[in-house]
């Protein structure tokens, strides 16, 4: 990659806009892109196009759903089968040794059970904290990448982009009326205005989640809503 000493051409900088938008450039490249953006309003407009593309690519991928429990079952079966076949101990080192020790079916079963208990406890505590935090306000933006709660909440979720004209008060009333809360967002790296919203307190099936998302989508306060895990 380029260093600070190598000044990039306008074409080079333009080619880096997608990585600038996702925050994956090193410091010197990001600084050069920022300087070019400050000097060229046209480049800033093209960065907006990149951000549009990024938002929709995220929505497209988030809408793909999640793998079924069959994946985990197949993995267990395959590992169990391999361990039965290869009874002789195999010398491993580093991460390999760690994984081999941990990933016996029996150890995995205990670990999984323990993990479920820990996660349930965490989820209970976090949910309680979140709900306490939202007694006075159901709007609490936070960074997706730094949120300690991400992946541990109980409920059903959607990615929601609110309409530009929607006020905080409108959004709060709307969320209250749907018993929903913002748990994450706005998404970092340019997907401005997209929030992860808990639309139901419990896990609901796909049809019910889609119905809830359609309900959100039908509001003029919401410009886009898609189911997410």
């Amino acid at each position, binding site marked *: *990659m380029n260093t600070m000493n190598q000044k990039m051409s306008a074409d080079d900088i*333009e*080619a*880096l806009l*997608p*990585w600038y938008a*996702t*925050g*994956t*450039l090193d410091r010197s490249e990001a600084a050069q892109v920022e300087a070019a953006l400050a000097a060229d309003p046209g480049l800033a*407009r*093209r960065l907006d*196009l*990149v951000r*549009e*593309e*990024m*938002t*929709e*690519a*995220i*929505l*497209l*991928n988030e809408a*793909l*759903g*999640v*793998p*079924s429990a*069959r*994946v*985990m079952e*197949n*993995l267990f079966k*395959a*590992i169990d089968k*391999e361990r039965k076949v290869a009874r002789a101990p195999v010398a*491993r*080192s*580093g*991460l*390999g*040794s*760690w*994984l*081999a020790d*941990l*990933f016996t079916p029996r150890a*995995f079963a205990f*670990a*999984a059970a323990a*993990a479920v208990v820990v996660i349930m406890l965490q989820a209970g505590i976090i949910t309680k904290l979140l709900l306490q935090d939202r007694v006075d306000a159901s709007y609490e933006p936070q960074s997706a990448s730094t949120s300690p709660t991400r*992946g541990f909440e109980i409920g059903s979720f959607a990615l929601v982009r609110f309409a530009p004209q929607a006020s905080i008060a409108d959004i709060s009333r709307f969320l209250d009326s749907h018993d929903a809360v913002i748990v994450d967002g706005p998404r970092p*790296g340019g997907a401005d205005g997209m929030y992860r919203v808990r639309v139901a307190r419990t896990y609901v099936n796909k049809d019910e989640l889609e119905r809830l998302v359609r309900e959100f989508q039908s509001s003029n306060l919401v*410009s*886009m809503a898609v189911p997410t*895990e």
Partner: protein
Amino acid sequence: MQVLFARHQVRVYRFVLRLVGNQAVAEDLISEVFLDVWRQADRFEGRSAVSTWLLAIARFKALSSMRRKPEEELDEEMAGGIEDSSDDPEVAVQKKDKGAALRKCLQELSPEHREVIDLVYYHEKSVEEVAEIVGIPEATVKTRMFYARKRLSELLKAAGIDRGWP
């Protein structure tokens, strides 16, 4: 391993699903990916992020799986792509939903272009990481991303949305 699997399975699944276009095949493949990770864990040297390593294995397995299929089956599947109930781009434009039109056009990109777009925008991979996953030089990653975005603009233009770029 439990944490590794829980943390990465969804993104690896989505990456593979976008490549193979079939949910059952994608699920089988990610089982194989994590099985390989268990088998080859001692080969992981920590020079790249775990997610980058996983995506590189997943990509190799997805492409191998697609090569094993008869040509006609592959063509049919690739042409069908992932099930998509949204309107076609022109209808989406008529409905003034630019986002939906953009998503539709993203689906219409070639597999090569879709892949680089997904890796950069959704998986948030750097130039170096994309190069490692796809197995191409960094300069080619940038060029491919540029042409993927250019093609996207052309598809949008054909659907009635002129973004004024390139």
